[in-house]
């Protein structure tokens, strides 16, 4: 049985990668992908703690399933927006989508 610390480190790494991606990338699609990475990191955490605590009701795994579902829905909406932006402005670079600013 692998100690839970390793798993948590992996999770933290993945989350940091996601944060970096969200803050640093300019491409809207890549930002959405980075958000998915952060959500994956959360899922790993949930599953790891579920295994460590030996929860018979599998609460952590069930939540992981919910998050995957919601992430799928979220990515559907997000990609639809990105496609609409692209159709209007022929770009998905977030720096150039700046209508609602001062």
């Amino acid at each position, binding site marked *: 049985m692998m100690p839970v610390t390793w798993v948590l480190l992996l999770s933290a790494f993945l989350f940091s990668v996601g944060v970096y991606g*969200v803050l640093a990338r300019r491409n809207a699609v890549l930002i959405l992908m980075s958000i998915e990475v952060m959500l994956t990191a959360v899922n790993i955490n949930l599953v790891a703690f579920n295994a460590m605590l030996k929860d018979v009701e599998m609460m952590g795994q069930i939540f992981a399933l919910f998050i995957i579902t919601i992430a799928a829905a979220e990515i559907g909406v997000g990609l639809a927006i990105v496609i609409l932006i692209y159709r209007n402005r022929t770009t998905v670079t*977030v720096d150039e*989508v700046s209508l609602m*600013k*001062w």
Partner: protein
Amino acid sequence: MVRLLAAEAHEVAVPAMIDWAWLIVAVPYVSFFLIVFLGKRLPGRGHEIGIGATAISFLLSVPVFASTISALGTEGFHGFEKSIRWLQFGDNEFLELGMKIDGLTVVMLIVVTFVSLMVHIYSTGYMHGDRRYTWFYAALSLFTGSMLNLVMANNLLQLLVGWEGVGICSYFLIGHWFEERENSNAAIKAFITTRIGDVGFLFGVFVLFFAAGTFNITEITEAVEGGTIAAGVLTAAAVLLFFGAIGKSAQVPLHVWLPDAMAGPTPVSALIHAATMVVAGVYLVARMFTVFHASPVALDEVAIIGSITMLIAALLALVQDDIKRVLAYSTISQLAYMIAGLGISAYTGAVFHIWTHAWFKALLFLGAGSVIHAVHSNNMSDMGGLKDKMPITYRTYMVGGFALAGFFPLAGFFSKDEIILGAFMQARAGHGVGWFVFITMIVTAFLTACYVARMLALTFFGKPKYDTGHVHPHESPGSMTTPLILLAILSVVGGWVGLPGEPNLFANWIHFEALEHHPFNLAIAIFSMIVAIAGFLTGWTIFRGGRLKIDIVRSPFGWFYRLLENKYYLDDIYMSAIVRPIRDQISKFAYWTNQNVLDGLVNVTGMATAALGRGAYDKIDQPLIDGAVNGVAFGADVAGRGLKFWQSGNIQGYAGVLFVGIVAFVLAFIFIRI
């Protein structure tokens, strides 16, 4: 509240009729409204309601009269009184609405209702086709109701209501043909002149109220008899009340309105300005006689005013050409007889004269109306020789004239004789004013017979002076002659209730407790009769016989004739000394007040409002309210300017802040342990 005015109340039962006596007053008032609202739709244009109501009042008055005078024979009985609370002010302060029924009241009830009924019937002929026929009957009804209210009132305020009611009806009816300026002026003159007296009356009522603490006539009488009111106060009250009588009964110096009041229709003159309303002043003095009796000064004033009036009015009656004006001055003179009679304490005689005078003077006015109707002129210089053309009018008019002159055995003789007797008794008792009154009465009796002779001669005898080509006089219709005949009968027999004898019937009805009744004196009666006959013959000789052909204007008495012609210049004096200055000054003052005071007030108000508005604008609206609004806007503006930089539109910027914020919260959560 029922009060039996009797020393021993158990001796007299209140007849059931008395409870309903108020209907006598109410019926004409109701009739007024019925005529006003329904009159025009009826076939008779309202006269059937008026005649019906007056007839009901008269028919109700008869049993009230009968039951009261039969009870008056009982020892110590004075009358009935009944009242309800009218206006309540507190627990015990209230105004009464009531009726006082005694000998004086019932005599007046009969006079008012009967003459009113006669005039109502007569007017169907006289006013036929008049443009305001319905209104005429409405006003007659209102007048009758007010007059009955006046004579029945048991308190002075209610009496005042009736008093003013008859005044306003008099105004309406004098000005009935108001299209002519002269008539409306006469109406205004009558109203304002009597109003001058009314002010005195009103103050007299106040004085009595504050002295006796009540408006109730019986209670005031008791208070006066009980001696609880100071003599000076009583004199003031009596003199003030007498002002009212001077105005209403047209005594000097306020007599000027009555001759002008002849501008009204003749039936009105008969009812209001001869038989009923003008005797209200006499009635008032008689009703409040306890107050006058308690003040010798006031009584002397009453006697002297009456004496002066009777003489100057009788002289004026001698020179008038207008037949109604002759009768008007005659009325003033006869009213003065009553007033002077009260002044020399001939109480019964004075009230008796109200009674007899009502019959023959109403008769004379209605007769004059009949003549005027026939010749279409008021002037005796357009009459003459009507004896054969109008036999009924002629005969009844002669009866009225002789009754006025005081010939035995007509009504006027008995009442006049009783007053003269009273004056003589007063004079013989050593009362200076008594002599004065007695002598003026004798002279006036002479003059009265004289102008009666003149009036009869010029109207009915001699050659016709009217335009025989165009005017064809004929007897008036039955609606007009019937009242004449009835009144002529009363002018004959009306005086017989005062036939000499013990007890004198009329004196039994009406007498003043504190005064002794003078028994019939044959010498005085014969003397006054001789004076009347002498006066009549003198007048007849001058104006009919033509034996004394004096060109009076050029004679040494010319100045006196001109003085009379011009009514002693009193009207001119009043006009130039009182009316014009006051009217002009008042209008000048009113204009000045309007320009300076009222306009000034308006302007000051306007300016103050403008200044206030400007102040509010400068000091409140601009700095405070606008300041607050602007301040909010400014604050929002500044905040917006500062915060707009956060709205970078850079999505990574937003996300960065979000992460920093979360990290900050997590760190705070871990280390500070909120």
